[in-house]
């Protein structure tokens, strides 16, 4: 990326061999820092600083009212033994394992279809993207009703083909599949990324493959897939990171309301970040919640690293020499 600039010498660049910089270069350096200053300040105040503070808080017991009390690794020990943490983490991983492959598979299918339509492509692209524009709270509300056991649109549709739909919102075994179903409605961004990647595959590659006698499947397997592997990898990483942090839709549906929370066993819908949020801002266990946040960070880093490692084997980058 950075290599695309062909750099003529900077105005007032130092004469080689002389260590003292000219006043002009000094002034340029000063301006460079002035341009970067907002980011540096923001980085220190809202990212690096909070990271350090959060690491420190994770070693304390802190309820906002009383000063933090150092407790060493107690929070982490407690974390490992907390069935709620295990449950919410299990739910989150289960969701991610279903959501990410399904999003990638369906999006790829839709993008391949979209690539083949001519003038109407823009129209269909809009259709698949509009759900992404819908505020997550509205998505949660909408699917709470669509997934309704007796009167919901989804079970009505299933009944049309003779299937007795499950209790999506109350049966603990079906809560998570229902949430996955909801999440699939908003896969439009992935479709657009794949479509852009598909359109960047040079046509002559397909022609060459055809001349070599490659059928439709062989062309897909040996031309399309390698050529869009960068986009596939990108969406794998981004969607995984996002789904490990799932919050808004599910919180809207099942949490934050005392009546629904007690009448319905919300354990089945507890995601990791929802549990973290409750620990922090409902029970004011700020130290414990900070430890939870660091565990999440480590999990995300770990999974991403594994994905990057694996990608080396599968991802083809055009013009890698650049």
């Amino acid at each position: 990326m950075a290599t695309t600039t062909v750099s003529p010498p900077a105005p007032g660049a130092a004469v080689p061999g002389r260590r003292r910089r000219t006043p002009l270069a000094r002034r340029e350096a000063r301006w460079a820092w002035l341009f970067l200053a907002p980011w540096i300040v923001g980085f220190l105040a809202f990212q690096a600083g909070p990271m350090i503070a959060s690491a420190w808080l994770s070693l304390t017991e802190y309820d906002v009212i009383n000063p933090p009390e150092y407790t060493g690794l107690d929070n982490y020990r407690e974390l490992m033994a907390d069935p709620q943490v295990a449950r919410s983490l299990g739910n989150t991983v289960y969701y991610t394992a279903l959501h990410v492959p399904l999003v990638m598979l369906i999006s790829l299918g839709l993008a391949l279809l979209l690539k083949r339509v001519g003038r109407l492509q823009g129209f269909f692209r809009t259709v698949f993207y509009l759900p992404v524009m819908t505020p997550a709270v509205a998505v949660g509300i909408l699917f709470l009703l669509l997934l309704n056991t007796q009167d919901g649109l989804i079970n009505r549709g299933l009944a049309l083909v003779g299937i007795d739909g499950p209790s999506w919102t109350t049966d603990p075994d079906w809560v998570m599949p229902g949430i996955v179903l909801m999440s699939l409605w908003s896969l439009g961004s992935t479709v657009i990324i794949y479509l852009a990647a598909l359109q960047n595959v040079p046509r002559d590659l397909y022609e060459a493959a055809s001349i070599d006698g490659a059928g439709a499947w062989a062309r897909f397997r040996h031309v399309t897939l390698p050529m869009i592997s960068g986009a596939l990898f990108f969406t794998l990483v981004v969607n995984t990171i996002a789904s490990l942090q799932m919050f808004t839709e599910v919180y809207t549906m099942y949490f934050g309301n005392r009546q629904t929370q007690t009448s319905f066993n919300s354990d089945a819908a507890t995601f990791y970040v929802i549990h973290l949020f409750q620990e922090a801002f409902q029970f004011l266990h700020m130290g414990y919640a900070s430890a939870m946040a660091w565990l999440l960070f480590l999990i995300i880093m770990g999974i991403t690293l594994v994905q990057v490692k694996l990608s080396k084997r599968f991802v083809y980058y055009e013009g890698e020499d650049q």
Partner: protein
Amino acid sequence: MLFVAALVGAAVIFMLPFVWLISASLRPREYVFAPGFLPVPFAPENYAEAWRAVPLVTWLLNSLVVGVAAAAAVTLSSAWVAFGFAYFRFPGRNLLFGLVLATMMLPFAVTMIPTYLIWSELRLTDTQVPLWAGNLFGSAFYIFLLRQFLLSLPREYFEAARMDGASYPQLFWKLAFPLIRPALLVAFVFEFKASWTDLLKPLIYLRDEHLYTLPRGLKVVLDRFGYGGEQQWEVVLAGSVISTVPMIILFFLAQRHFIEGIATGGRKG
């Protein structure tokens, strides 16, 4: 023509939830769950009822103000910083830019609590300031996006203006800024949408109902009028439609910018 059929089928499935939402929001309470996709009996008064039941106009305006502030702040500051990375050459530049990109990996949860404590220390909780002020310092993805755009501009432009005695802020404001307008719009619409749809920050920072943004208000509407509450689903649905429509309008106004922003993010790989 099999693929056309498949595509149309998929499109219908994706649109049905919208059709149902709008139609159900226009039916009387006891017909909300009635079968069919038509708003019969027709009950547009649901919207007036929602309007009366909760301060929807206030929430709409709050969302608008917070959204514009958040989007303008992040666009301007990110462009400023991006110019710094694109124009100037200094030791450690690529390292620093790598650090910018690395911050995209940091989960919100890690910084959430200390950031709350900062705003609390500044006595700015229960104001809307924390919802947008953090954006004044630029944001990694937009800095990346705008820097890409700036790097595509011929450097001679800037050199020539420098020769003519333009200052660096002038280079940024008079030269770069108008030239990267498409990318600025991408950043603006993305951040506006992000702000408009955000629930977490309003949940953390806002107590006073009159400061709520739409998603926060809509959550209250659901809790008050939905399952746990009075089962007035028509009010909940009308509120959902009202919070969604501005986003749909925004998409049609700025469709090109949304598509471009997503495709750029994806191509990055």
